[in-house]
Every structure is written in structure tokens, then in C-alpha cells.
């Protein structure tokens, strides 16, 4: 069965390997550039003792940065093009009947095919994630935003897990619907829906959030990478100032600023409470 699985999918595996190789070359070349750019920037700021504010430093180029963000969508490709047709296409063309009438039980037929496909999905997600994680190293050191949605989802174990999920979803949809195209549609829709629910509603609650208060002007930088869920301004009594909805300075609605701060706003004093 393993040989048959390989024989049926070797073309797709070749295409996937070629895509991964192209991505690897691109990310290795630009990643090495970024790393040296970062190291020289650090060396320069260490020499002048000005390393406190490097947030404005931009590494790499926009096109590659965009491509890296787009790897967010790569796990679902495994489910769409390998998972959904795995059972459905064989049922549609009848080749499942051929396989089932060799001396192989249907259970084993499915188990072997699905296992190799899940492994392939894990490798697909893993290689992309490894490249992206390595490539993002300098940026992660600089911006401390590796836990933000869109960054967290393309690094570490997360893409591997999503690729496995997409593959499992694709295989299941194909086996239940028995037709490739509807199975692909369900895989895509299901993946996006689950992805959105996790990112928007579940992930913020995986750990209880920590609230810190700091001086408005000096600001605060938590140690290590963090994900800022919300921020706001407190007044002198410790009560939150309402959300900005109109003219504001430093995130504070102008009508909440004390009169003494009016010069800060330039010519905006006419908005202050009378």
C-alpha cells in the first residue's frame, strides 16, 4: 500500500518539493541579508549607547515580507490538494474498487494512505514553518511581536498543527461527500472558519491576560515577546478614560485633557470643555 500511495502521489510530492526548495532559496538569501543587517545595526548602536529605540529599523524588503505573511495560507493547501481528493477522487473514478479487490482490507487501504498523507502534511507545514521562523529571527528580536496574530500563526509548531488539521479535514470531507470538488470547498470553508474562531475568540483566552499600568509619557516595554490585547488611558483617579472618538492627543480625547495641557494640542483648544 505504501508503494501505491507513493506511486499515486509522487508527482504532487515533486511539485511540493520544488515549491519548498524555491521558498527555501528565497528565504535563505534574504534571511542572511537581514541577519547581517541586524547585527551591524546592533554593533552600531552599542558603540553609541543608543540601543533603547531600534523599533524604527526596517529589515528585509516588502515583497518577501508579504510572501512570508502569506505562508499563513499554506497549511490549507495540503488539505485542499492532497486531503480532499485522497478518498473522493478514488471513489469518483472507481479506482477504490480496484484497490479494495486486491488482498488488502479497506481499513488498511485508508489507514496507510491517510498516515502517509498526514506525515506529508506535517513535513509541508514543518519545513515552511522552520524557514519562516528562522527568517523572522531578527524581526522577532527587534519587535517582540511574535505572539501577535499573523506572526504567531506562521511560526513554530502552529503551521504543522494547522497543516495536519487541514489534511484531516480534507480526507474526512472527501470520504463523507464522496466527490472531490465539494470536498475541496468544504475543506477551504471549514479551515477558514475554524481558523477565524480560534484566532478571534479562543486564542485570547488561552492564558489569562496580565494588566500593567505605566506612565503615559514614558510607556512600558514588557520583558520578552508579548501580545497586547487592549490598551487604554486611566485618569488621575485610576478610572479608564473613554475610548477615543474624535480629536485626541496621546490617545486621550481632547475634552479630557486638563486645561493646562492645552498648548500640547496646538490650535485645538476650541474642543476643550468650557
Amino acid at each position, binding site marked *: 500500500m505504501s508503494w*501505491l500511495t507513493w506511486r499515486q502521489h509522487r508527482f504532487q510530492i515533486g511539485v511540493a518539493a520544488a515549491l519548498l526548495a524555491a521558498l527555501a532559496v528565497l528565504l535563505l538569501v534574504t534571511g542572511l541579508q537581514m541577519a547581517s543587517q541586524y547585527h551591524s545595526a546592533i554593533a552600531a548602536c552599542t558603540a553609541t549607547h543608543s540601543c533603547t529605540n531600534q523599533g524604527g529599523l526596517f529589515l528585509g524588503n516588502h515583497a518577501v515580507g508579504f510572501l512570508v505573511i502569506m505562508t499563513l495560507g499554506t497549511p490549507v493547501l495540503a488539505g485542499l490538494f492532497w486531503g480532499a481528493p485522497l478518498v473522493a477522487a478514488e471513489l469518483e473514478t472507481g479506482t477504490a474498487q480496484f484497490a479494495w479487490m486486491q488482498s488488502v482490507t479497506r481499513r488498511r487501504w485508508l489507514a496507510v494512505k491517510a498516515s502517509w498523507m498526514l506525515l506529508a502534511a506535517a513535513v509541508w507545514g514543518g519545513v515552511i514553518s522552520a524557514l519562516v521562523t528562522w527568517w523572522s529571527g531578527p524581526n522577532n528580536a527587534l519587535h517582540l511581536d511574535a505572539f501577535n496574530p499573523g506572526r504567531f500563526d506562521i511560526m513554530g509548531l502552529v503551521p504543522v498543527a494547522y497543516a495536519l488539521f487541514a489534511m484531516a479535514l480534507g480526507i474526512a470531507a472527501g470520504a463523507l461527500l464522496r466527490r472531490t470538488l465539494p470536498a475541496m470547498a468544504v475543506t477551504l470553508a471549514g479551515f477558514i472558519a475554524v481558523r477565524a474562531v480560534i484566532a478571534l475568540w479562543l486564542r485570547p483566552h488561552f492564558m489569562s491576560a496580565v494588566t500593567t499600568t505605566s506612565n503615559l509619557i514614558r510607556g512600558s516595554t514588557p520583558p520578552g515577546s508579548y501580545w497586547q490585547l487592549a490598551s487604554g488611558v486611566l485618569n488621575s483617579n485610576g478610572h479608564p478614560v473613554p475610548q477615543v472618538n474624535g480629536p485626541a492627543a496621546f490617545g486621550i480625547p481632547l475634552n479630557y485633557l486638563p486645561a493646562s495641557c492645552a498648548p500640547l494640542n496646538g490650535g485645538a483648544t476650541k474642543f476643550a470643555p468650557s
Partner: protein
Amino acid sequence: MTTVIETRGLTKRYRKVTALSDCTITVPDGRISALIGPNGAGKTTLLRLLAGLARPTAGELAVLGGIPRQDPAFLAEIGFLAQEIPLYKRFTADDHISIGARLNRHWDAAYARDRLRSLNIPLDRAAGTLSGGQRAQLALALTLAKKPRLLLLDEPVAALDPLARRNFLATLAEAVADSGLTAVLSSHLLADMERVSDHLILLATSRVQLCGDIDALLAEHHVLIGPRKSTTAIEKTRTIVQAVRTDRQTTLLVRGNAPVLDPDWESADVGLEEMVLAYMGQDCMPAPGHLTTVGEKQ
């Protein structure tokens, strides 16, 4: 003589549709059995049950002495060829032979290759580019290379032109004779199977109408021709399968060998096709005792 297939009261329901009901058949060893019935009669369902690809809703069945099951040892003994002649379009005949070699316990690759060479079927061309007849021959060669003891072919010649049909059945009959296996071939056309089979299973409206050795079945069916008169006397000793009544004449197809004493009735032998068509014409027979008649107002 041992039996290869034995079923009792076999029934298969798919949700609300009854595909096969109360099917009781026996197929002895070494026969080529023709499974005949109109489209939708339950032929495919019966073959799938026999191959272990589906499970019965009710009833019992024994194939090669055991219950069909998803088990390599059982599957190795069965050669099943589905109606759509499943082959991997992009794989060559050689590829298929290699797949079979890896997925089967017994596999005679040399036999399959010799067979295809003698039929002038290229081994190195994708199956999708072969003609319908060549694909059917390739699928049959692969099914036979498995060295099964029971061959189940679902409408194997339905998609073939008359010449390819003839060649296919000829090679099949030869292979069966050589290896001594048992075969069940389904078709909605009796003419396809008449030449090669010596056993008949007739299905209509999901029920078995006839099952047995063709010569024995023909010997116990007769055509009785007589004047238009009551058939009550005949019904006492024989089963009337079909009655066609005109103003002057009554033609009966009857089953049973009890002598007809009434000199008004003239008895004649029946042909296979005539017998089969008479049974196929019967819509939904609840039991052999309640046969309806054709051409009679009820």
C-alpha cells in the same frame, strides 16, 4: 459436489430502498453462472454482498465456506470486477501488474503479461488511452492474475462492442476451464451469457426468480398450448409462470414435470430465452404460489 456460494434469505436495504430481498441461491463448484436481470434488479448488490464489499441487512450467506469479510485471506480468494472497470487512468498495464504484486498474497505477473501480449495489448501505455475492450481485457487479466477461486464479474461486457464481447467471453471461458474456478457473471442481456454459462440465477425486482443448472431448469419448464379454457386442473400439479390468452388459444409456460392428461393441451420444450423472458415479465412476485398472469383481466 461442493457449493461455492450459498445464501439464505439474503436481504439488503439502503435506507428506504430494498435492493435485494429474500435471496436464496446456491452455486456449485466449477460453474460459470449467469446472473441475469433487468437494470436495477439487484445484481450489483448481490455481487457486492458476495465479495464482502457490503453487509447484508438480513439473511445468511457463505462464500467458499465462510462469511465474506474484510480480511486479506478471504479477499485473496475472490476476484471481483466492478461494472465501471476500475483502472488507474494514468498507470500503464505494467504499473497495474506491479501494484497487484504488492497488494496480493498470490500474484502471477507472468500470466498477466503473457495474456496481455497474446491479446496485443501494450504494457507500457496509460490505461486511460486504451480502448474499452482493451481496458476490460486488462482488468480481467489483473483479476485472474490474483488466482482467485471465485470470480465475480459485474456486467463485464456491457460497455463492449459485439466483437470485443465475444473475445472477452471466449478468453474468460478458456481461463475458467484452465483453472477450474467458479464464476458468476452478471448481465441484463441473456444473449451475452448464454454461450459461456451453464448455471443461471435470474433476478427481477430484487427477488430471485430462478436459480439452478440451465439444463435442469429447461427440463422442468414446458410450453402448453391449448384452447381457451380453465387452467385450474393444470395449476393443481404445475406452476403457471406465464399465461397468454387470446380469443381462441391459451399459451402457458409451466414449471413442473407432472404429466398433463388432458389431450386438449399440447406440450413443447421451452427455449432458454423464452423461459427467462417469461420470468422477467413477472413484476414483483411475492412468492411462487401467487403468480400473476399476463394478458388476463383480473
